[in-house]
């Protein structure tokens, strides 16, 4: 199986066989599976292992005192759930498994050793963290400046690019086994509004949903509806047009 962390990080830099070996070693230790709806890391938890999504789908989420919830980000294979706990004492939000999810548990000391010894990997990880923040910034823009249709289209197009980066969704189809409730939590909408928005996108032939998968028959059309600009994903190697890595999402950006 391809290492999704390597696939994600190599958007920023090409790695030597040694560096690939280090990344493979990082994810080769403990694995843990989570059922849909399970809490991967609770809020307030002090973590000494870093959770990397290997398969499935997880969400970064916050539950308010009245029980309502906001999903700030979906985490797909190759995404680190809690790398910030190196610096921060405890998690200030929780990580939930949306579908059956497998995480590799990376011991913090192992990650620290890598960061000390391999500057290219450190820079790549830094790039990845900053890109994750840029994705979060888009959610702020969603709430401030995008209407329901644009917001939904933007999320679906962004997920398509992110799945492409890890070598999936070559057929413009990817797994999104979310409930309308979870999609409402991720877009700040109500389930009924989500339903109406998706119906319109389906009706216009822009997206299809079937058995927990999204298919995008015409990505260019979805991109237009979303008013999507890919700059914030900082796809360096795609911009440079070098290597097979750039080909993964080159047609989408």
């Amino acid at each position, binding site marked *: 199986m391809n290492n999704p962390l390597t696939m994600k990080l190599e958007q920023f830099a090409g790695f030597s066989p040694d560096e690939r070996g280090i990344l493979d070693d990082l994810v080769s230790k403990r694995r843990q599976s989570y059922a849909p709806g399970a809490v991967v890391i609770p809020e307030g938890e002090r973590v000494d292992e870093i959770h990397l999504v290997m398969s499935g789908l997880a969400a970064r989420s916050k539950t308010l005192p009245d029980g309502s919830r906001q999903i700030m980000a979906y985490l797909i294979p190759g995404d680190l759930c809690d790398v910030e706990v190196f610096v921060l004492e405890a998690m200030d939000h929780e990580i939930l498994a949306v579908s059956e999810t497998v995480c590799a548990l990376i011991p913090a000391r192992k990650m620290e050793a890598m960061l000390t010894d391999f500057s290219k990997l450190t820079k790549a990880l830094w790039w990845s963290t900053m890109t994750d923040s840029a994705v979060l910034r888009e959610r702020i823009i969603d709430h401030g400046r995008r*209407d*329901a249709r644009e917001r939904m289209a933007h999320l679906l197009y962004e997920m398509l690019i992110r799945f492409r980066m890890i070598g999936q969704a070559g057929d413009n189809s990817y797994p999104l086994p979310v*409930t*309308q*409730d979870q999609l409402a939590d991720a877009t700040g*909408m*109500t*389930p*009924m*509004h989500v*339903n*109406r928005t998706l*119906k*319109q996108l389906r009706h216009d032939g822009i997206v299809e949903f079937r058995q927990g998968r999204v298919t995008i028959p015409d990505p260019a059309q979805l991109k237009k509806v979303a008013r999507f600009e890919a700059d914030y994903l900082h796809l360096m190697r795609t911009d440079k047009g070098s290597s097979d890595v750039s080909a993964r999402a080159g047609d989408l950006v």
Partner: protein
Amino acid sequence: MPRFFFHLYDRSGFVEDEEGVEAPDLEAAGAVALKGARSIISHDVEQGRLDLEGRIEVFDAAGVLVLVLPFREAAG
């Protein structure tokens, strides 16, 4: 937790809720419907359209109609 289905009738036509949303009881389901109706009405107002002719019909898991919420009541 019981599951309720929130079918929407508005200017866009009929939007069937095939999946449903869990709610503890009918009162909570009513609150979900109210919030949904208001979110749709206010979004449409932002787009320059006021539609108070719509409604949300709530069905329980057995397919029984348990609540009708006219938009006019949600935003009156």
